[in-house]
C-alpha cells in the first residue's frame, strides 16, 4: 500500500471512528441487568465490543454473600447455534471485593446474543441469561505510531527487496573473491522489474484493504430512523426509516415489549421540560399511528423502542415540530407524561404534598461507565414512603436517561437496560417472576452513564392507578 493510500485510509478510519456508538439504546451500548440467578441476586454489566467478532467484558456483582464461582457462556439467542454452547469461562474474583467478578467473552457474529451466568455457591446452583446485542459500531482508527511504523517499514522493505533482487542478478553467481560489480545492465533491469512487481503488489494490497474496509463499513450498525407527520389535527403517523443495514434486520418481525410493539417517547427539545411515554399502534409493518394528548407546541425529539423477534432491541430516533394541541386524546391505559418542572435537587414535587425522592448519598459524585443502582421512592405528605406502588406495565417502574447534548438516550427498568421483549426470549422463567413482583416502597434502577456530562432522568412510578413522572438533573464526572 502506498504511503498516500495508507494516509488516506488512516484519515478515513479516524473520521469513521467519530461516529457515535449506537445500539439498543442511543449512545449507551453497555448492558446493565439486576436479577436473580436462582437464589443469588446479581448486578451484571456487559460491555459489548466495538467490532464483531470481538470481546465483551462481563462484570458480575453479587448482591449477597455465598457465591463461590461464576461461569460465563455466550450463545446466540435464537437458532440452531443457541443450542450448542462452548465450554464456559470462569469469571475472576476481584482481589478488592470478594463479591465482584469479571470475565471476557467472544461474540462471534452480528445479532442478538445472550450471556449465561451460572452461579455456584452455598445455596447450590443458579443461572440467568442476559441478552446483549452484538453489532459493530465503529472502526478503530490506526494509532499514529503504528501508522508511521507501517509506512516506514513499507518504504524500507520495498527498497530492500528491490536492492536484494538487484544484488541477486548482479552478484549472486560471481566466483568467490571476484570483485563485486556496482551496476550492471541486467541488475538494473532486474531491479526495475522488481520495483514494478512490488508497486503492483502494493497497489493490489491497498485495493484489497480498501475493499475489506468498505465491506466492513457496510456492516457498521445503522440505527433506524423515524419519519413523523401530524394530521387530523392530533394524529401522529410514524414510519420506521430503514437506512440500509444488514439483511438480518426486518421491520415485520417486531415482538411485544411490555405488551406494546413500540414504546414512544416525545421529549420537547432542548428544554426537556415536556415528556410523554406513549404506545402507538402498528398500522402496517414499519408503520405506526397514535392520537396525541393535548400538549404544548415545540420542537420534539422522538424515540421509539422496539424489539425484533430474534431478541434484537433497537431505538429508532426522529424529530418533529408540533403545534399546540388543545383537544387531544386524554391519556389512558399505559400512556403517561406531561410538562415537568425538573428538580435540581433530589426531591421532585408531584403535587398534593407528594414527592418523588432520589435516595443517594449527598456529595458522592457519579462516575461515567460505573454501574449504580439508582434508588427512588415516593413520600406522602407526612414524609412517609407510600406503600401503594403498583406495577407499571409489569415492572416496578420505568425511567428514561437522556444526556443534555442529545448523545444518549436509555430506557431502563428495575431489571436494568435489557428490554423485557428480549428478556422474554432469553429467559422466560425469570420474566414470569418479574411480572409477579410488587414494587416499592423503594424502586431501584441499575444503570451506568456512558460518558461524563449533564443528564436528565425521568422516573415513572405508578400508584393509585396513576403514573407519576419525576425529573432529575445529574452531573456525571
Amino acid at each position, binding site marked *: 500500500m502506498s504511503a498516500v493510500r495508507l494516509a488516506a485510509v488512516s484519515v478515513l478510519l479516524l473520521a469513521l471512528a467519530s461516529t457515535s456508538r449506537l445500539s439498543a439504546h442511543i449512545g449507551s451500548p453497555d448492558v446493565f441487568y439486576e436479577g436473580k440467578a436462582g437464589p443469588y441476586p446479581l448486578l451484571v454489566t456487559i460491555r459489548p465490543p466495538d467490532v464483531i*467478532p470481538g470481546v465483551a467484558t462481563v462484570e458480575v456483582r453479587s448482591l449477597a454473600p455465598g457465591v463461590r464461582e461464576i461461569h460465563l457462556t455466550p450463545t446466540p439467542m435464537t437458532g440452531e447455534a443457541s443450542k450448542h454452547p462452548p465450554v464456559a469461562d470462569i469469571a475472576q474474583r476481584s482481589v478488592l471485593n470478594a463479591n465482584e467478578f469479571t470475565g471476557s467473552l467472544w461474540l462471534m457474529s452480528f445479532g442478538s446474543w445472550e450471556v449465561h451466568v451460572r452461579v455456584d455457591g452455598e445455596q447450590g446452583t443458579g443461572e440467568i441469561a442476559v441478552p446483549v446485542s452484538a453489532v459493530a459500531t465503529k472502526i478503530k482508527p490506526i494509532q499514529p505510531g503504528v501508522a508511521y511504523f507501517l509506512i516506514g517499514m513499507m518504504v524500507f522493505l520495498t527498497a530492500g527487496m528491490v536492492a536484494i533482487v538487484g544484488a541477486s542478478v548482479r552478484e549472486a553467481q560471481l566466483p568467490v573473491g571476484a570483485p563485486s560489480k556496482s551496476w550492471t545492465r541486467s541488475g538494473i533491469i532486474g531491479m526495475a522489474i522488481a520495483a514494478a512487481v512490488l508497486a503492483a503488489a502494493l497497489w493490489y494490497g491497498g485495493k484489497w484493504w480498501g475493499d475489506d474496509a468498505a465491506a466492513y463499513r457496510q456492516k457498521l450498525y445503522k440505527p433506524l430512523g423515524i419519519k413523523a407527520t401530524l394530521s387530523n389535527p392530533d394524529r401522529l403517523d410514524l414510519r420506521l426509516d430503514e437506512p440500509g443495514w444488514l439483511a438480518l434486520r426486518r421491520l415485520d418481525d417486531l415482538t411485544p415489549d411490555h405488551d406494546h410493539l413500540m414504546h414512544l417517547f416525545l421529549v420537547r427539545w432542548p428544554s426537556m421540560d415536556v415528556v410523554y411515554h406513549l404506545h402507538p399502534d402498528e398500522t402496517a409493518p414499519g408503520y405506526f399511528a397514535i392520537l396525541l394528548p393535548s400538549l404544548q407546541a415545540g420542537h420534539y425529539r422522538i424515540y421509539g423502542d422496539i424489539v425484533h423477534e430474534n431478541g434484537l432491541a433497537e431505538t429508532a430516533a426522529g424529530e418533529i415540530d408540533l403545534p399546540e394541541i388543545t383537544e387531544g386524546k386524554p391519556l389512558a391505559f399505559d400512556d403517561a407524561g406531561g410538562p415537568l418542572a425538573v428538580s435540581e435537587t433530589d426531591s421532585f414535587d408531584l403535587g398534593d404534598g407528594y414527592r418523588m425522592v432520589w435516595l443517594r448519598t449527598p456529595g458522592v459524585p457519579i462516575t461515567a461507565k460505573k454501574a449504580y443502582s439508582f434508588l427512588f421512592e415516593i413520600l406522602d405528605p407526612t414524609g412517609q414512603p407510600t406503600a401503594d406502588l403498583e406495577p407499571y406495565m409489569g415492572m416496578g417502574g420505568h425511567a428514561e436517561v437522556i444526556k443534555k447534548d442529545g448523545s444518549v438516550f436509555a430506557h431502563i427498568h428495575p431489571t436494568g437496560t435489557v428490554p423485557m421483549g428480549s428478556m422474554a426470549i432469553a429467559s422466560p422463567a425469570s420474566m414470569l417472576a418479574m411480572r409477579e413482583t410488587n414494587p416499592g416502597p423503594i424502586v431501584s434502577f441499575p444503570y451506568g452513564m456512558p460518558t461524563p456530562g449533564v443528564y436528565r432522568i425521568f422516573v415513572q412510578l405508578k400508584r393509585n392507578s396513576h403514573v407519576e413522572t419525576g425529573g432529575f438533573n445529574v452531573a456525571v464526572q
Partner: protein
Amino acid sequence: MATSLPIQTRARVYAPDGAAQAAGSIPWYIWLSVAGVTSAVIGVHWDISWHRSIGRDTFWTPAHIAIQLCGVIAGITCGYLILATTFTKSALRAASVNVLGFRGPLGAFLCAWGGFTMITSAPFDDWWHSAYGLDVKILSPPHVLLAVGMLAVQIGALLLVAAQMNRVPGQQARRRLENLFLYLAGMILIVLLILVLEYTHRVFLHTAICYRVIAMLTPIVLAIASRATGRRWAATIVSSIYFLFVLALLWILPLFPAQPKLGPVLHEVTQFIPAGFPLLIVVAAFLLDWIWPRISGWGEWKRAAVSGVVFLASLLAVEWPFADLLQSTVGRNAFFGSIYFDYNQSPLGYAATYRFVPFETPMEFRVGLLIALACAIVSFRLGFRTGDWLRRVRR
C-alpha cells in the same frame, strides 16, 4: 557447470563462518535459519489446528510464538551475519553481495527481509483485529504479509544453503548441504500447500480446482529441488518430507486435549483437530525422478510438458480412488483421519456427511483439468530455470 571455488580458508574466531568453512561443516547461521523455518511450519499447522479445535486465541498462544520465532531468529541471525560481514574482516566477505551498502550472503539479506516482514505483520494484524474484528478467514492483508515474510525466510535459508553447497569443498559436506536443501524444499512445499488447504480437503479431491492449485504450486518446488541438488531422487525425498510431516501431525495432534472456547459447538471436540491425510504427491514425484534422467537430452519446454502430463496423470490416478477410500467407512478412523471435524463444522455439510463437493459440471471439470495441466507445465518450466540458477549461486 563451473567448478566450486574454495572460500578464503583462514579461520578467524570472529569470522561468521570461517571456522565452519575450514572444517567443512555447516555454519551455525544455516542451522539457525533451518530451525526458524521449522518453527514457523510447525507453528502454522499448530495454529490452524488451534482455530479448528479451540477457536479462540490471543497473540501469545504457543502456536503464534512458534511462528513469530521464525521471524525473530531470521532477523537477529541474519542481521548479525550482515553486520559482521560488513564491518569485520570476515572470511565470508569474499562470498557476499552488496545490498544498500551492506555486505553479506544473498540468502542472509532475504532471510532478514522476511524476518522484518513477519515482525511488521504482528502490529498490523493486531490493529486489523481491533478494527475489523477477529479474522474468520486465512487470507487477509496482514496474514498475507506474514506468509510473504515466512516464504522469504524459507527461500533465504534455501539460498544460504545453496550458496554454501555450491562452494563447499568435499563431497561429504556437499551431500549434507544437499540434504538440508531438500529438507527446506520440503518445508516450502508444506507451507505452499497450507495456503490452498481449503481446496485440498478430501471433499474437493474430485474437483478440477483441487488439482489446479496443486499443479500450480508443487511442480516448481520438485523441479527446483531436483535441478539445484542434482540428486537422483530429490523430488521423491521432498514430497516424502511433506507426506511424513503432515502424517505425523495427523497422528500426533489428536493426542493432545483441547476444548472449544467459541460457539456454536456443532461437533464435540476433545482433542486437537489435525489437517487431513496428506496428498499422495510422493507417487508422482517418484515417477518424475524415474523419468527425468531418461529425457535429459530433451528441450526444456518438452521436458516440462512430459513432466506435467506425468505429474497430473499419476496424481489423479492415485488421489482419485484414494479420495473414495477416505470418504468411505475405511477412512473413518484415526489412521486416515476422516473422523475429525472442526468444532463449528456443519453436521449437514459435505465433510460431515462424507459427500464430494459437486460444484463443477463435466465440461468445467474437463476444462479445469486442462488448465491444471497448463499450470503444471509452466510450473515445471519455471522450476527447471530457477533450479539451474540456484545451482550456480555462489554467494
